[in-house]
């Protein structure tokens, strides 16, 4: 169900909406792995000064006691201090909101940002926490029947899956 055009349009929309933010010299941070792929595209298109940061939420997942320690933890790498900086947090799909909750926890272990703006490629229904995207490229309602997943990094594609 995915088309390259849908994704390109969504990225274009994100870029347009994020452009006004660039005057605040934000740090862009992508959430592994899909969020990083999306952030890489946006980061170069927006020509941000600070290098792209990446977050790995493995230590803050709320399902640790059920799924255990992920041995392929890539780790969080922030190019610079986030203290008193504006952050653009990027993820691929916003669904329950748990990933973003974990990402915020991970982020705040590094310092205190001035603000965090959430940009997602696709936001769908099914929120389990009070978390919303500030900017979303695509909006979709899928119910409980399907999951949607971003594959990548090249080419980026959205795939619909049965649970």
């Amino acid at each position, binding site marked *: 169900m995915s088309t390259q055009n849908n994704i390109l349009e969504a990225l274009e929309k994100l870029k347009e909406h994020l452009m006004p933010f660039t005057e605040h010299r934000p740090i862009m941070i992508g959430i592994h792995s899909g969020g990083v792929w999306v952030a890489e595209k946006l980061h170069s298109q927006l020509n941000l000064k600070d290098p792209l940061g990446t977050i*790995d939420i*493995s*230590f*803050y997942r709320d399902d*640790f*006691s*059920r*799924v*255990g*320690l992920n*041995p*392929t*933890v*890539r*780790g*969080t790498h922030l190019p610079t201090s986030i203290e008193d900086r504006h952050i653009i947090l990027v993820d691929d799909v916003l669904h329950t909101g748990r990933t973003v909750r974990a990402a915020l*926890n991970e982020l*705040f*272990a*590094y*310092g205190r940002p001035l603000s965090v703006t959430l940009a997602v490629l696709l936001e769908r229904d099914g929120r389990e926490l009070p978390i919303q995207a500030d900017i979303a490229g695509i909006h979709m309602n899928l119910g409980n029947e399907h999951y949607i997943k971003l594959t990548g990094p090249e080419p980026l594609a959205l795939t619909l899956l049965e649970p």
Partner: protein
Amino acid sequence: MTDTDIQFDKSGALRHFLTVEGLPRDILTSILDSAETFLGLGQREIKKVPLLQGKTVVNLFFEPSTRTRTTFEIAAKRLSADVITLETSRMSTTKGETILDTLNTLEAMHTDMFVIRDSFSGAAHLISTHVPAHVSIINAGDGRHAHPTQAMLDAFTIRRHKGDFSNLRVAIIGDILHSRVARSQIHALNILGVPEIRVIAPQTLLPNQIKRLGVHPYYDIEKGLDGVDVIIVLRLQLERMEGQLIPSDREYFRFYGLTPERLSGARPDALIMHPGPINRGLEIASSVADGEQSVILEQVTNGIAVRMAIMATLMGRQSPSPREAD
């Protein structure tokens, strides 16, 4: 049931960390990989992650220790666990009865993990057969038998500097006979694929059957160190020796001490390691211990990350709730 089997729960997940012996390589490698990420935590503002939040870890140290005990405490605290340390210098002459009494009391306090050090070989194994299904045991050193977390942190340190295990010559110098560290190191390095492991010691400090472990014994330190990539110096376990196994401290240093002259026979980039605490001028010269090739202090830092990785691995299995039967 062997020591190794008992380390796994019914679904095949690692539940206890009692010995490295018999563990598959991929388990060791995944612990080393996880430790790499935990090492990175040291750069954060808040050096804590919530993985063990709400869990209770009890350190039972029936044998004195400062370094190991402290690093286990720090590791558990950085994982957000609640930590209690009990230290008693009880000699377990009753072969475990006293330990089990203590254990029953602690279980009633809903402990999730015990880290155990005891002077009796097999203590951790014994305890692991008596705890409920949701409880994990880590062996912090049992008699002469094993010190698996030390072996892991040593392997981690070697990997960080040398990368690939498959090309290395590693020499272990010292009191191999009494050393649980040496035994665990030999097992770990074998499993990780180190092609040549040498042990260097006077005959009185080498176990008779040492070659069975796949190592090469040397009584001559100069020959033993020739072309070596990693040198692990062990402490003389003076408190464990009965009878005159070495003539004197000075004699030992004269023949087996790691001096700068002897070091020059090894490769120029050879790593110097020691599990600590070091006896300066006994098994190692001060200048070598403090020299550029020494990673002795780094081992301590790495010990925290590796112990975090082991604790997180054990606690991260799908554990049955305390009420489920084993």
